């Protein structure tokens, strides 16, 4: 390969205007580490691209209008029925535009996948501690996208103006109406008057196709820019340190792998759109505020909000001429935003508790930070209990249970479950740490049993490889945050003492019981000890020497 100092014609034209060699030099061979869990965010990115492509196709035929028309399309069961143009054009896309149903279904599957991928990606970030400095801002950007994605999905669900989507909006309308002071006004401004009115489809449409996707696109750009700037995190291992990133170059390996993966994701969503029915709006009929289908479910990501309002008891206060609907204010307007805020701010909370101000580029294994892992499981359990609540009727009918019992169970489980989940996960992580510790200190169990002349049975252990041993020990040694003496040398009390005490207590709790990795000395001693055990095996023939050894040790 000869290296040329001049670009060929067309590339030169571009370079003369953009200086692409200067930009490309740094990034063409940029290194990304390889791990399956790094693909989750990619799935989210690719489903977003698929959503833009299929969504654009749908806008060519969809009419975002609530004007009443008489349906005259080719679906005979609804022929002659009065409905909004939005619903009629959705039926046209489904039955009269070739490939329209396919695109609608790919669009819906990709939306479901988009949010699922973002959420699993978020869990990966959480459990590996990838949100730590310097990536806290990217965690928040990701959170913003997840939030907007959920709103986007829900609004898109409302656009076809079928019975199910109208019911979803009716519920949203009822929740907004419960907001103290401003609820009724907000509803009248959002819906252009009373529900359902004839404004929301055209208003939600522009939010769905322009406003939110535009913001998400901007956030995606920022998100990816920061990934490139910070360089990707990596799992600890031989040769992988805080100061480097080990993996394959963007060109050609990741161009092929990530580019190929886009086609795989697109291919799978296309196959799902072709073979698996989703949201068959023609079966529900046009929206009618006096009708509803039993056992109806929203898209999966709305399930936890639905569950939250389902399991909350019917509390309401009326006084001084006002009504406070606690049965909506708490489960719909306080709990979900508070929970989301808590998770979104977690990196800052953890950073404050641990007092850790360093940059982190090596990922934690979940077991190595047992308290964080426990908190993560508590979050998941809380979410899961609410999510199950969203299907309490289906659970009752499918498993022949009393709906009231299911609901009462969840009312307790939503509080006790996370505590139990936290405790189990934390202990589990600590046990895994202990298993790692044993493996490191005593080696592998070989299954070979030895007998000493005295009749003592021991199992022969074999040391693990240096690479594995290094991977196990390549993690932080975490100690609780210390707050220093109560008073300084002049007897002046330290400022903000109570806050710092609380912080130290939290920090102790955070690191309590976690297994520290051994020091080199401990490891050396353990290995010498293991070596002794091996010698027993060799010395068994020479009983006298063996006795000497044992007497020495006792």
């Amino acid at each position, binding site marked *: 390969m000869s290296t040329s100092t001049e670009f060929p014609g067309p590339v030169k034209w571009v370079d003369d205007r953009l200086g692409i060699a200067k930009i490309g030099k740094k990034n063409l061979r940029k*290194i990304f580490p390889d791990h399956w869990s790094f693909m989750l965010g990619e799935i989210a990115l690719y489903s977003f691209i698929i959503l833009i492509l299929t969504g654009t196709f749908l806008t060519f035929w969809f009419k975002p209008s609530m004007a009443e028309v008489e349906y005259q399309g080719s679906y005979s069961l609804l022929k002659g029925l009065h409905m909004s143009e939005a619903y009629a054009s959705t039926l046209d896309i489904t*039955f*009269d535009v*070739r*490939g*329209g*149903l*396919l695109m609608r*279904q790919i669009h819906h599957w990709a939306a479901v996948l988009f949010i699922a991928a973002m959420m699993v990606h978020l869990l990966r970030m959480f459990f590996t501690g990838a949100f730590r400095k310097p990536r806290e801002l990217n965690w928040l950007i990701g959170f913003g996208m997840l939030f907007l994605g959920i709103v986007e999905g829900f609004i898109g669900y409302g656009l076809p103006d079928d019975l199910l989507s109208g*019911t979803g909006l*009716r519920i949203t309308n*009822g*929740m907004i109406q*419960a907001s103290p002071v401003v*609820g009724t*006004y907000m509803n009248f401004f959002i819906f252009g008057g009373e529900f*359902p009115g004839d404004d929301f489809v055209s208003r939600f449409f522009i939010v769905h196709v322009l406003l939110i996707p535009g913001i998400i696109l901007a956030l995606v750009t920022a998100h990816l820019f920061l990934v490139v700037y910070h360089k990707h995190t990596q799992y600890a291992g031989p040769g992988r340190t805080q100061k*480097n990133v*080990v*993996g394959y170059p963007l060109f050609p*390996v990741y161009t*092929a792998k990530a580019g*190929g*993966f*886009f086609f795989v*994701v697109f*291919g799978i*969503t*296309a*196959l799902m*759109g*072709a*073979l698996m029915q989703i949201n068959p709006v023609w079966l529900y009929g046009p*929206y*009618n505020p*006096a009708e*509803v289908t*039993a056992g109806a479910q929203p898209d999966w990501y709305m399930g936890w909000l639905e569950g939250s*309002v*389902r399991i909350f008891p019917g509390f*309401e206060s*009326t006084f001084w001429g*006002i*009504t*406070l609907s606690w*049965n*909506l204010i708490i489960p719909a307007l306080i709990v979900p935003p508070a929970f989301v805020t808590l998770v979104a701010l977690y990196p800052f909370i953890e950073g404050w508790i*641990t*007092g*850790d101000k360093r940059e982190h580029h090596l990922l934690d294994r979940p077991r190595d930070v047992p308290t964080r892992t426990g908190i993560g499981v508590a979050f998941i359990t809380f979410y899961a209990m609410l999510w199950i609540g969203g299907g309490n*009727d289906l659970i009752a009918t499918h498993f022949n249970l009393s709906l009231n019992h299911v*609901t009462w169970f969840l009312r307790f489980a939503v509080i006790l479950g996370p505590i139990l989940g936290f405790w189990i996960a934390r202990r589990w992580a600590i046990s895994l740490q202990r298993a790692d510790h044993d493996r490191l200190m005593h080696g592998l169990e070989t299954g070979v049993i030895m007998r000493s002349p005295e009749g003592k049975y021991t199992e022969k252990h074999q040391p693990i490889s240096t*690479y594995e041993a*290094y991977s196990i020990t*390549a993690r*932080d*040694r975490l*100690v*609780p945050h210390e707050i220093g003496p109560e008073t300084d040398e002049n007897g002046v009390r330290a400022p903000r003492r109570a806050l710092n005490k609380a912080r130290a207590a939290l920090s102790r709790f955070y690191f309590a019981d976690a297994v520290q990795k*051994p020091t080199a000395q401990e490891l050396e001693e353990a290995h010498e000890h293991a070596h002794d055990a091996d010698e027993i095996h060799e010395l068994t023939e020479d009983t006298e020497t063996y006795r000497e050894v044992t007497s020495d040790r006792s």
Partner: protein
Amino acid sequence: MSDEKNLPVKSEDEHGTAVEVAEPIPDPGLEPHEPRITDIDPKAADRVERQVSGMFGLATLLVIGSCVAYFAIPRDSIIEFGPLSGNANNMVIGLCIGLALFLIGAGAIQWAKKLMVDEEISEERHAAHSSPQQIAEITEAFQQGTAESGFTRRKMIRNSLIGALGVLGLPAIILLRDLGPLPGRALYNTIWAKGIRVVNDVTDRPIKPSDLVVGQLVNAAPANLAPLQEESAVEYQNAKAKAAVIVVRIKPSEIRTKPGRENWGVDGILCYSKICTHVGCPISLYEQTTHHVLCPCHQSTFDLSDSAKVVFGPAARPLPQLPLAVDSEGYLVAQSGFHEPVGPSFFERG
């Protein structure tokens, strides 16, 4: 390795409680690269080349196939194949395109994994923050800019600018005022009024007490609703969203009447708002034996024999009851409108 190195050492940070320590095991460096079969055996590499190009080739055929299917399969033809039933045109186009996309992706990944160089490369990382020199430079430049503008010195300019920009937010909010009318009394009223007949909401026929047997529940609407549809679709929908009712006939001995509502029923026929007091779904599941009606959205359960009080679920208030009477022709009519707002609660409801 000497012992002292292994003691936890505090990092330089004031709050650095996570500690840097000497590793118990020194970094052995990257594991040696193990060649793949395709690196050693040219035949294996050629085989992978054929696989990859085979996938790309098949993808080409499938894409062409999808174009053929678009024109060849009538848009209304149906495939009936067990669980795989549906519109044939959509399904075949989707299958061809989906498989083609998948094969393009799988081929590219196979190519990367089996044929492209797979030796790991290490790249240096740099701290995210700027260097002290950069900080010094930018600070100086910023200070120079601030000084040249006089922004900090001429406080009147600064403050008046902040004020002008601040009030810009006002029109941004005020201009949205016409998004909707003010609520007024809209949520308090329905189109029910004295003497309005109760009609079946499917047939639009007025209902006589004799039409209902004990245990029967009928979805109903006010007689003045249907004519609205001709006038304005949106008025019709809005009115319906509040005026929908259920009419139920219960054995009079099983009814526990609330004081003041003794004459609101006709021979055990009672009428309630169909709109759930929780978030406004139309309630719809009726259980004859218990007289319970359940909202399918959030499972609030109301006892129709006991003034529709809440017996389970998240709703807080009973369903509003519509007082019934019989008109001169023997049809059910409303004695008056609802005595309270129907549907979900709102702040100023009282």
